[in-house]
């Protein structure tokens, strides 16, 4: 017996105590700083992270740009409150509902509180009340009789008459930035957009809003949604998963083991192994400062079945052998000798599969892979010590009547229906070996086609089940509004033009003045253009000179002539304000129109919408005036008119004050990555076919885009990680079997399993999303296990019998039964994940079960069939003893 196991068998009680103390320490290590952070500042408390943004590292360029743009355009994360009233014929536009909406918006303004920052300074958190978008907080520009325009709150006070209520709708729907955003396209519903200081306050804000909404007794239904809300909810559901599904899986595994082994006290041992492995791994995760993220929350559910897997092999073998040997110590000795090598190798391959995830570019996936690998290794160490130790601690009499065929059947091979069934399977695989191989190859071919049909797609909102309140709200609002998924297209002019271009601009403008003063300054400009360091430098020099000349003028006419040259200089300087140019604005307008026509975008908002709306209302609200004016001065004056409103700062959410950057705010009805990808492609192809009138670059940001970006990285990263670990496992197998042919044979069931699983995913149209991507590593780690066990045992048996027919018969005895029991225990054991309220966990549950079943089937049918066909080369004569 190997030294580790023999040590455990000699001092079983010490090992059990050590495991107990280890678990207790791990729990204490996490509980102490989490419950009393002040008392243990040197320890890491439990940190939960439900932000999908963190799928990308904090310094990832996509994310850095996202945060820079958010800051530059003062865009905040939003809580969205949709208000729908189906009981009233005018929807929400009645005095009661609008009165409630008014009250809700007023209340939302007060959801603020102070917290103390780490440096001791107070910081205000909660709702950013100045940026709330609600009927009572936005301006309406409109005609006010006698050729007057008016900026007025859309809903300054709660409406007193039904007419006033309807008027809110009429006025809002005239304003493109509000229509389909604040008021639904069908004119029946309203959505409030409540910006918050940071995502992590959304729970408190939403709770306060729900409290206020509960006071209303109208017919309206309120939907609270938005990505921050979804994330908070995700955190809640994540813990539900860990608290309900994982223990349920454990209970089911326990029941199944009881069905197979019928000894309650014996099957407690794999449970102990699983518990200690999970506690150890999660404890280590938290204690080393990693967050419990959507990915890392799945670690227990992955570690548990793998932890049980080896224990089931030991128990299965023990169960089969004990009736013959009738001595627990000797039986353990025998079992461990037989299983040591396959268990070690299955552990190494599983660890390899998961550890390969460390090479993906997604930090949470790296953490997940590494810690599952650690958990698997821990489980192995515990299995080879605790299981034998536990058996030794049980009195010998506890085993009376234990084991297969113990109740007096003549031969264990014939004892049970399971044994008879597996022998039948073995006989079939050997007799019809060619047919079996052909069937598997055909399956692989179909799977190959299926893989080409795979659609790579994900959407964090769809991580909730279809009838979850988040999904219900998502559907309700996206049916009625332009869309709740925000993506932003940043348009930027390149860095400043050089002094030369500025000198040309100045020359043109001064020449058109045609005054002696302008002529004088133009001459100076020509003299200066060569030695000016920059455009700003040139301007500053000329400005100083012209100001001196102006201030020295005694005559009014001279003074104004010089003032005009200064005006010309200022105009030249302003030529860099790219997004005041009518040409550029029309380009954006056409891009918006094009995006509308593609049907991919629910709605877009840009600075052009503001320009057109104000321009229209300056011209008596006539529809033909709903256009971009023809000069940059006219654009500027339209925009300054807008800035005479209650919310001038809204302009700078669409364009920067220097008019060098603008943003196209897109509302999408779907957060699916494929849809985002199509929009990106549409914009790219538009820009190629329609080059902008000035040099403008475009780039994306916004959470919908971030999700798209990390998935792109994930897919390519996963493919690399998978191929890398596939090669490593193949090398390991070749080393283990000291034969490339045997190495390839071991890889066969795994290849079939992964091929068929992904083929099915492609054929049934299930999106290749985050959990599906992670599954490739899992199947690599699990599917190889059965092949290792089967192949190692077949070789051992062949050495004993020297003949394939007898070997095959023996292999379908205990080894096949161990594999079968494993498939059932773990395959069924994952089913409780279907009860999880989050789709990724359900996906994992279904596919792990499918992977295990397939891997089992492939191992028990394909492997013996191939062995039959190639028996001469796989079992050369000299190996026979």
């Amino acid at each position, binding site marked *: 017996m190997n030294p580790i196991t023999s040590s455990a068998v000699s001092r079983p009680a010490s090992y059990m105590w050590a495991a107990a103390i280890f678990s207790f320490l791990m729990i204490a290590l996490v509980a102490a700083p989490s419950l009393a952070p002040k008392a243990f500042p040197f320890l890491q408390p439990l940190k939960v992270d439900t932000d999908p943004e963190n799928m990308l590292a904090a310094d990832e360029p996509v994310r850095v740009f996202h945060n820079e743009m958010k800051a530059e355009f003062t865009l905040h994360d939003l809580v969205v409150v949709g208000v729908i009233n189906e009981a009233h014929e005018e929807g929400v536009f009645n005095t009661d509902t609008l009165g409630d909406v008014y009250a809700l918006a007023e209340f939302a303004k*007060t959801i603020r509180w102070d917290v103390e920052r780490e440096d001791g300074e107070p910081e205000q958190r909660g709702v950013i009340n100045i940026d709330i978008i609600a009927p009572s907080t936005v301006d309406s520009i409109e005609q006010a*009789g*006698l050729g007057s325009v008016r900026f007025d709150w859309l809903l300054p006070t709660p409406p007193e008459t039904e007419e006033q209520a309807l008027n809110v709708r009429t006025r809002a729907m005239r304003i493109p930035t509000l229509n389909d955003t604040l008021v639904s396209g069908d004119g029946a519903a309203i959505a409030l957009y409540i910006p918050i200081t940071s995502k992590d306050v959304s729970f408190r804000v939403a709770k306060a809003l729900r409290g206020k909404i509960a006071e209303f007794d109208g017919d309206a239904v309120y939907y609270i949604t938005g990505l921050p809300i979804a994330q908070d909810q995700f955190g809640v559901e994540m813990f539900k998963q860990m608290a309900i599904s994982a223990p349920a899986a454990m209970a089911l595994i326990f029941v199944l083991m009881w069905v197979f082994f019928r000894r309650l006290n014996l099957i407690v041992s794999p449970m102990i192994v699983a518990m200690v492995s999970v506690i150890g791994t999660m404890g280590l995760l938290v204690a080393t400062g990693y967050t419990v993220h959507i990915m890392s929350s799945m670690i227990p559910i992955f570690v548990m079945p793998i932890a049980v897997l080896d224990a089931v092999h030991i128990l299965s073998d023990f169960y089969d052998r004990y009736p013959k040997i009738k001595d627990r110590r000797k039986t353990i000795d025998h079992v461990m000798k037989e299983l040591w090598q396959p268990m070690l190798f299955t552990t190494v391959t599983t660890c390899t599969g998961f550890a390969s995830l460390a090479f993906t570019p997604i930090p949470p996936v790296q953490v997940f892979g590494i810690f599952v690998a650690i958990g698997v290794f821990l489980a192995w160490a515990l299995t080879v010590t605790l299981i034998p130790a536990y058996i030794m601690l049980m009195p010998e009499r506890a085993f009376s009547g234990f084991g297969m065929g113990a109740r007096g059947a003549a031969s264990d091979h014939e004892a049970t229906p399971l044994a008879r069934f597996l022998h039948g399977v073995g006989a079939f695989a050997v007799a019809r070996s060619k047919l079996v191989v052909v069937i598997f190859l055909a399956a692989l071919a179909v799977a190959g086609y299926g893989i080409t049909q795979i659609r790579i797609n994900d959407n964090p909102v769809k991580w909730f089940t279809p009838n979850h309140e988040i999904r219900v709200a998502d559907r309700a609002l996206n049916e009625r509004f332009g869309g709740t998924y925000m993506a932003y297209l940043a348009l930027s002019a390149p860095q400043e033009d050089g002094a030369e271009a500025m000198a040309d601009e100045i020359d043109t403008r001064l020449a058109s003045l045609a005054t002696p003063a302008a002529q004088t300054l133009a001459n100076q400009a020509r003299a200066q253009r060569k030695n000016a360091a920059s455009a700003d430098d040139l301007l500053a020099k000329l400005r100083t000179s012209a100001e001196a000349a102006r201030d020295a003028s005694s005559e009014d006419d001279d003074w104004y002539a010089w003032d005009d040259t200064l005006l010309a200089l200022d105009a030249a300087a302003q030529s860099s304000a790219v997004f005041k140019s009518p040409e550029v604005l029309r380009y954006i307008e056409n891009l918006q129109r094009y995006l509308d026509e593609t049907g991919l975008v629910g709605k877009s908002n840009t600075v052009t919408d503001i320009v057109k709306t104000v321009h229209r209302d*300056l011209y008596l609200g006539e529809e033909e005036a709903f256009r971009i004016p023809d000069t940059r001065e006219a654009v500027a004056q339209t925009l*300054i008119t807008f800035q*005479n409103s209650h919310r001038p700062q809204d302009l700078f959410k669409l364009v920067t*004050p220097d008019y060098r950057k603008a943003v196209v705010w897109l509302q999408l009805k779907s957060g699916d990555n494929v849809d985002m990808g199509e929009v990106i492609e549409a914009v790219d192809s538009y820009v190629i076919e329609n080059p902008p009138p000035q040099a403008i670059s475009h780039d994306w940001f916004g959470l919908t885009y971030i999700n798209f970006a990390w998935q792109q990285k994930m897919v390519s990263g996963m493919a690399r990680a998978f191929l890398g670990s596939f090669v490593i496992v193949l090398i390991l197998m070749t080393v283990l079997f000291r034969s490339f042919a045997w190495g390839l044979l071991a890889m066969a069931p795994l290849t079939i399993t992964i091929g068929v699983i992904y083929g099915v995913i492609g054929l049934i149209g299930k999106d290749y999303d985050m959990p599906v991507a992670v599954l490739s590593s899992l199947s690599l780690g699990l599917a190889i296990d059965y092949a290792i066990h089967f192949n190692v045992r077949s070789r051992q048996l062949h050495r004993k019998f020297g003949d394939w027919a007898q070997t095959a018969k023996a292999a379908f005895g205990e080894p096949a039964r161990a594999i079968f029991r494993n498939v059932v225990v773990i395959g069924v054991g994952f089913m409780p994940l279907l009860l999880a309220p989050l789709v990724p966990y359900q996906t994992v549950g279904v596919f792990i079960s499918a992977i295990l079943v397939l891997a089992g089937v492939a191992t028990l049918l394909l492997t013996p069939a191939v062995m039959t066909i190639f028996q001469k080369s796989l079992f050369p004569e000299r190996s026979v003893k």
Partner: protein
Amino acid sequence: MIKQTLIAIGAIVVSTSAPVYAQDASDTGGQDVQTIVERASAAAYYQGKDGRASVHMSILDSQGRERTRDFTILRTDVGDVDNGEQRFYVLFSRPADISKMAFLVWKHADTNDDRWLYLPALDLVKRIAPSDERTSFVGSHFFYEDVSGRGPNEDNHVLEEVTDAYYVVNSTPKDPDSVEFASYKNWIHKATFIPVKTEYYDAAGEVYRTYTASAVETIDGRPTVVGSKMADTRIGGETRMSYGDVAYDLDLPDDIFSERYLRNPPRRHLR
């Protein structure tokens, strides 16, 4: 509070720092609070019978990004009555793309002001409907009402404190629905009656908007605010205004304060 510029008498630089809370609130020199507020309004908005100033406005947003506006402002008091009818003519010169944009206000003591806007690039004179005057003045942190002055009769005033240098007056609106603040507090300089600081409070009693007169000079013998700023914590940032070429009692003709002159600026009076 552009008109604070156009005011004046006496050479004092008013310090806004640390008022001394030593004196008894009854020491008001025998004036009731309404009188103090009216005198402050007159000192801030009605100095001389008319006036002119060139204003440089610097709008700094929460990210420290600057936008500027340069304009000349002409004012006349109709009949030279303090706290009475007034007219303003504001002509923008910079940035270049809003050059010659003009703005005319007929301020009425007891009704809403009449306002017109001329947009030269669109060749359009627009009347701005009499409504809310607490909207931004050309994108700055100042409101229209800060520029033209809030009538002393629109609020209820309480003299909260009298310090060595200031009357501290707390004012609450008579019509709370028409304004965004719950109250405001004014530090009125005792010697000049110039309001040197105003704080606006929201319903929670927190200051969100602060006006400060940052520089006062004596021009034509009148104490005149030549630097002021308005900060707003809700949107962040602040707007600073500095006043040059201040002159009083120029005998500005009444007719330049009319719609006709919006298209043709009265150059002679503007330089």
